[in-house]
Structure formats: structure tokens, C-alpha cells
């Protein structure tokens, strides 16, 4: 009977902390998404409303021409195509190579395994930005590419090519680490049963472990996608031709050219984030685990 006492008899002060929590969280969330809402609102405005003296939250009319202008001026179809291609290859490579190496480190016994693994793991802490000069020089001096001889001299190597754009994104130590952690906990019995039945180790990996790795693959694919899709410094350094521009690179150039064409700039930004937001909403349950393991965004 006591438990069924109606809620209203509770003193009102009981609800205050909870209410306060909601208020603070909502204010914070508003600060987080207000820039995006402002981006959306600006992207459909006409110039006279953008440059009006007072802030107009909602446009009086929806001007979708900004989107068409932005799409054409940035050549966004091409940007999407380039970024999509580079991202797809990078994600596939990071997942497959990470799974292979992760399997070897978790499941196979060979001499020097731990030393090798921990020296690779240590390199995870070396930021790409620190190594950009030697990596740039390596890509530029890639043998037998872009007019280079076998010693990597004479031409520009993989500079300003898709291969050069993708090259540093082919592998991630984080991926190896993530798959290793997963395979360490994978039940041994299944693997052993398959080997008794005459399956080779490569077969075990390909037919049993990989198909059962979907959660890790999803986590890793999402991270690799975000890194590759949002990558900026490397494309900036390695791309020269406009035809090779990635989305981020194209947007940054557009940003420099357009100055204060805010509607077009915001329309272009909107188009660039939408695929990421959709993918994130679809895969967000896989993200938490990975973020916690890595400690990186």
C-alpha cells in the first residue's frame, strides 16, 4: 500500500536535483548543436537575411539555390567521389590488415611475438603530424612511380596521386590492437574443433574468426571512416591537382575563395557532414567501446 502512494505526495524538493540535471544537460546540449542548427538555418537563407541587423533564427523563405551553387562551385560530385574512393580503400585495408595482424598476435605462437607487438603498440603514440616530413619524402621518392627510377629519383613518385593519398591510411596500429583484444577473448574450442576437422589456420581465420568479428569490424570501420573522411593535413600536403581534391580539401579552398558567401559555405558544410552523421547514427552503438579503448576521438 505504501509503495502505491501517489507521486504527488512526495515533497516537491525531491524533484529539484533531477530537474536541475535536465536543465544543465539541455543547456549544454543546446550549446553543442546550436552551431549546426545555425549552419542549417544559414544554408537556406537569402543574403539580405544573412546580413540583416538582427539575427533571424528561421529564414522567411527556403532558398535551396545555395545548395546547387555550392555543389557546382566546389565540384562536389568529384569531391565526394574522390573522398569516397580514398575512404573505402583505407577502411577496407585497415580492417583487413588489422584483423590479420590481430589474429596472428592473439592466436599464433611464434618467437619474438610480444616484443614485436609492443614495439608496434608503442608507435601508436607517435602522432602522424610529427612524421609528416619523412612520410612525405618517402611518398615523393616512391620507386618506379611518377617518373621515378628504381632509386626513387627523377620524378614526383606518388605525390599528387590517389595511391599517395591513400598510402599513409592503409594501416592503423589501433586496428591491430582492437582485433587482438577481441581475438584474445574468442573461444578456443571453436578454432580447435575446426582444425581437428581438417581446416587450415588460414581457413579458420577466414571462415570462422572473421565472420564472427562483426562488432569489431563495425567499430573499426566507423573509426577508419571518420579518420579518412575527415582527414585534412595529409590531403593538403600531398594533393596538387584539383581533380584529386578530397571533400575537406575542397571545402577549405571554397572557404578561402568565398570569404563571406555564408549561405553557400554553410550549404557546402551541410552536404559534407550529412553522410558522417547518418553513418554515426547507424553505427553509434559500436563507437563507445572503441572510443574507450583508444582514448582518442
Amino acid at each position, binding site marked *: 500500500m505504501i509503495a502505491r502512494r501517489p507521486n504527488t505526495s512526495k515533497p516537491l524538493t525531491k524533484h529539484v536535483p533531477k530537474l536541475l540535471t535536465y536543465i544543465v*544537460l539541455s543547456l*549544454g*546540449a543546446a550549446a*553543442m548543436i*546550436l*552551431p*549546426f542548427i*545555425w*549552419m542549417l538555418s544559414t544554408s537556406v537563407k537569402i543574403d539580405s537575411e544573412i*546580413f540583416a541587423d538582427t*539575427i533571424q533564427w528561421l529564414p522567411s523563405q527556403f532558398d535551396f539555390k545555395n545548395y546547387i551553387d555550392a555543389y557546382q562551385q566546389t565540384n562536389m560530385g568529384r569531391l565526394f567521389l574522390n573522398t569516397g574512393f580514398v575512404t573505402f580503400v583505407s577502411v577496407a585495408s585497415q580492417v583487413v*590488415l588489422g584483423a*590479420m*595482424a590481430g589474429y*596472428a598476435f592473439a592466436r*599464433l*605462437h611464434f618467437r619474438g*611475438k610480444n616484443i*614485436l607487438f609492443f*614495439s608496434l603498440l608503442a*608507435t601508436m*603514440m*607517435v*602522432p*602522424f*603530424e*610529427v*612524421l*609528416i*616530413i*619523412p612520410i612525405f*619524402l*618517402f611518398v615523393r621518392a616512391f620507386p618506379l612511380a611518377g617518373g621515378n627510377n628504381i632509386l626513387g629519383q627523377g620524378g614526383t613518385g606518388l605525390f599528387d596521386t590517389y595511391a599517395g593519398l591513400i598510402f*599513409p591510411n*592503409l*594501416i592503423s*596500429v589501433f586496428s591491430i590492437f582492437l582485433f587482438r583484444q577481441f581475438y584474445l577473448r574468442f573461444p578456443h574450442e571453436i578454432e580447435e574443433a575446426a582444425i581437428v576437422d581438417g581446416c587450415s*589456420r*588460414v581457413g579458420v581465420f577466414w571462415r570462422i574468426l572473421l565472420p564472427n568479428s562483426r562488432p569489431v569490424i563495425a567499430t573499426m570501420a566507423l573509426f577508419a571512416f571518420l579518420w579518412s573522411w*575527415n582527414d*585534412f593535413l595529409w590531403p*593538403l*600536403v600531398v594533393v596538387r591537382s584539383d581533380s584529386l581534391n578530397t571533400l*575537406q580539401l575542397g*571545402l*577549405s579552398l571554397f*572557404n578561402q575563395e568565398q570569404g*563571406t558567401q*555564408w549561405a553557400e559555405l*554553410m550549404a*557546402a558544410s551541410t552536404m559534407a*557532414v550529412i553522410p*558522417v552523421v547518418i553513418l*554515426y547514427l547507424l553505427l553509434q552503438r559500436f*563507437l563507445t567501446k572503441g*572510443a*574507450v579503448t583508444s*582514448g*582518442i*576521438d
Partner: protein
Amino acid sequence: MAIASRDHPHRKQQVSFGRRLYRFYNSQAFVAFLFLILPVSLLIILKIYPIFYNLYLSFTRYELFEPPRFVGLRNYRYIAQNSVARQSIWNTLLFTVQAVPLGTALALVVAKLLDENLYGKIMFRTLYYLPVISSVVVSAMIFRWIFNPQQGLLNYFLGFLGIPPQTWLSDPNLALPSLVMVTIWGSIGGNMIIFLAGLQDIPGDVLEAAKVDGANAFQRFLQITIPLMRPVILFVVVTFTISIFRNFGLIFMLTQGGPLNRTNTLVWEVYMSVFANLRLGRGAALSMVMLVMVFILTIINFRALRERQG
């Protein structure tokens, strides 16, 4: 294979060549070799060799179109004496000091508030995470608009508080704080996720016992949650700091190191040395300074991780 020899012990000596080949192919060492050759080669090319080559380059004068020439410590002496280079190190530290404590505290508070039974918990988490998945380029473009002195949203809001319009990114005193603002905005979601996981490891009975003893929510947070979360907090502080060291896109998009070099950080100075001035040796030396700073933080980080596990 143990199983096979148990089945046919007398045939052990007579295995065919094909069978032996298969056994070799199926041996753990060979499969490991097969699986590791590509990933490990790539990591050697992309991670290990560059560290040493960069170290070598930092002792040379190298302007890309002529071969590198060994000059000893000249690049390091330059960094120690040149005021712009020194300022870039100072700015990096200043950026860190302004962003990390506040950003970490906010992320921890949000995580703590979200660690309750709330309606719309997942929605809140998603909203806080959105800035993290948005690219630096897009975030920078939005904030360039928000910081706009004439029609910008920020000046509009400050107008309500009676604060006169500021020029934000072109004001030498406000440019770095403006970048700090964007950085904190973009980092809360990521750090919050790590804190949420850490909070789940705090035993509920400890908090319950404190509650029984009459500690209020604020006291429990300060005297139980924070001490127990210390390793996680340290972890976030270190990774957050490293991410600030790496923060190139925001500076490229918003200030280009200006005004008056006030937002010229190490990573920007490296980029300018190499890709604007073609001073590769100098850029390599600056990179080494950055690497050493990251390395020190990483040692702290590993200590924190060990503490977290132990």
C-alpha cells in the same frame, strides 16, 4: 599435428612431400609470417623508419631540391634562439593550459550528470557527440561564421550581456581563446564517452555508503567520484593534450598562425617551415621537439593506464 600422429603412428615417417608442404604452410610460425608481413612492413615504412629519418633530417639543412647537408645542432640552436619558433612552443603550452582543465572538467560534469537514470540519455549522448564526428574543416567554417564581428552569433549573444562586439579571430588577445572555445566544443563528447565508461567502474555501494553517512551529491562527487576517477582523468588529460598538439586544421582554417603569431603553435610552425619555406631540416627539428613533448606525456599516460588496471 598431434591428432594425425595419434591416428596413424606407424606412418609418421612416410608423409608425402605435399603433406609436409601443407604442414609447413599450416605451421603457426608460417601463418603468422603470412599474416604479418604486409601490416608490419607498412608500419615499419610509416611509423618506425620515419622516426629515425626525421631525427637524421633534424641535423641537416635540406631544401628539397638539393640533397640534405649535415649541419649538426644548427636547427635546434635556431629553435632555441628564434623568437617565432620559441613563441610557437609557448603558444602550444598556452593553448593546452587554456583548453585542457576547462574542457576536461566540463566533460566530467556532463558524464556525471548523464550517469543517472534519465529520460533521453542516449539522445543527450548523441547530441554531445555530434561535434566530435564533424570534421575540423566543417567546424572551423561554422565557427568562422559564428565569430564574425558584424553578423556573428557570438557577438549577438554577448550583446544581451551588454558586452560590445569583439573581433575574435583578428584580435591578438582573443584569437587563441577563440580557438580554445572551438576545441573545447569539439572535445567534450569524446572525453565524456571515456568518463562514462570510467564512472561505470565505480562500485555503487561506496557511493551508497556515503549517502547513508549523509554526504550530499556534491560532496560525493568531490570526495568519492573524483578520487576514484583519478586514473581516468589523467588518461583523458594526456590524450586531450596530445590532440591539442596535433590540432592543425583549426589553425589553418581560422587564423593561419596570426594575428601577430598569437596562434602560431608547434604543428603550424612545422607546416610553415616545410611547406611554405621549404626548410625541411628545421621542420624536422621542430617535429622532434613536438615528439619529445608527446613522449613525456605518453610516459605519464602509461603510468595512468597501469594505475587504472592495477
